């Protein structure tokens, strides 16, 4: 990685990549891989799926960067790609789940469920899940509709402004405000009891 480019802005990095400097792309990747991974992970709540999706996102960024003309923040563009890839994947997963649910064979369902359970037990994530607080937050966030969930994750965890969230989710700033307000109201209701319990 170039030493002189440490303070390069995202636009500089993209410009350098367009001019053939592949290192600039890797810098962009290194800068955003963890935030994007966490955004996806908190939205889909499956670590291995989140890693797959994140890789797909950066391949899309790689493919699209050469033709990209900066219109807003580069980060917003990456988050928009992330949202699209996530939606596509979630749609596919939901379809798969519907197919599994429609199958008459209960064995198949049991088999699939047990396999999911197995991976969960083996996953290091399970250890983290043991923490009650995290489990409560995860459960509360999971219960939100996908768009509200994404908006909350981008606001609370990625600390994006409402404007940037709007760009990432392709909705207006006003719609983001409403979504986050509703989502946080629900979360507050669900988590207040838990926090009080823990506090006492």
């Amino acid at each position, binding site marked *: 990685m170039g030493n002189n480019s440490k303070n390069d802005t995202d636009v500089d990095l993209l410009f350098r990549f367009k001019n053939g400097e592949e290192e600039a792309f890797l810098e962009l990747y290194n800068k955003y*891989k*963890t935030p994007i991974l966490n955004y996806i992970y908190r939205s889909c709540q499956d670590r291995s799926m989140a890693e797959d999706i994140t*890789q797909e996102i950066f*391949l899309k960024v790689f*493919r699209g960067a050469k033709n990209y003309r900066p219109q807003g923040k580069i980060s917003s563009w990456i988050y928009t790609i992330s949202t699209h890839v996530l939606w596509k994947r979630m749609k596919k997963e939901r379809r798969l789940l519907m197919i599994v649910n429609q199958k008459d064979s209960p064995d198949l369902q049991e088999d699939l469920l047990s396999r999911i359970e197995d991976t969960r037990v083996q996953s290091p*994530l399970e250890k983290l899940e043991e923490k009650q607080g995290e489990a409560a*937050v995860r459960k509360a966030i999971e219960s939100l509709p996908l768009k509200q969930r994404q908006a909350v994750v981008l606001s*609370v965890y990625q600390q994006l402004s409402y404007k940037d969230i709007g760009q990432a989710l392709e909705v207006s700033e006003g719609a983001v405000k409403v979504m*986050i307000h509703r989502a*946080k109201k629900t979360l507050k209701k669900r988590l207040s009891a838990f926090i009080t319990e823990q506090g006492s």
Partner: protein
Amino acid sequence: MRKECQDLNDHITALADGEISPEEEKSIGLHLAHCQDCRSKVEDMIKIQAWMKKSWPDIKPSKDFDHRFIAALDHEKASRKQRASWLSGSQRWVAACVLIFFLITGGIWVTQKEKKLTLDQVIISTEFELFRNMIVIKNLEAFENYDLLLAMNEIAGGAGE
């Protein structure tokens, strides 16, 4: 609930996120200064957000994440190169010839297809044939009467002489 408290209720999340305009901030600030209930609601929201962030910390990419991505990237670059090199040198000419061949054969096929008559066209042409035949028959009939007419003319001519 007072109207001011109701108004603030709609802005609690935006306030906790620092997403309100300076004008709103002014009026909300004035209200918060003397409304303990609303103040504690905003504080609760900020606390919950902080607690949520603390309770569910960020994950780091797994150890082989970069390795897997670089491999996927290399694969992407290789297939891109392959796609680019596929149309280089003599292969480009082969591809062009194949394309021209298909364009020509496709064109011929389309024109041939166009030449085939539709059902309507078949009916019209058959009827036209029939129409033409009727004219021929009429002419033939006229031709058959020709001898008679000729004989009548001769008789009339003879009588005149």
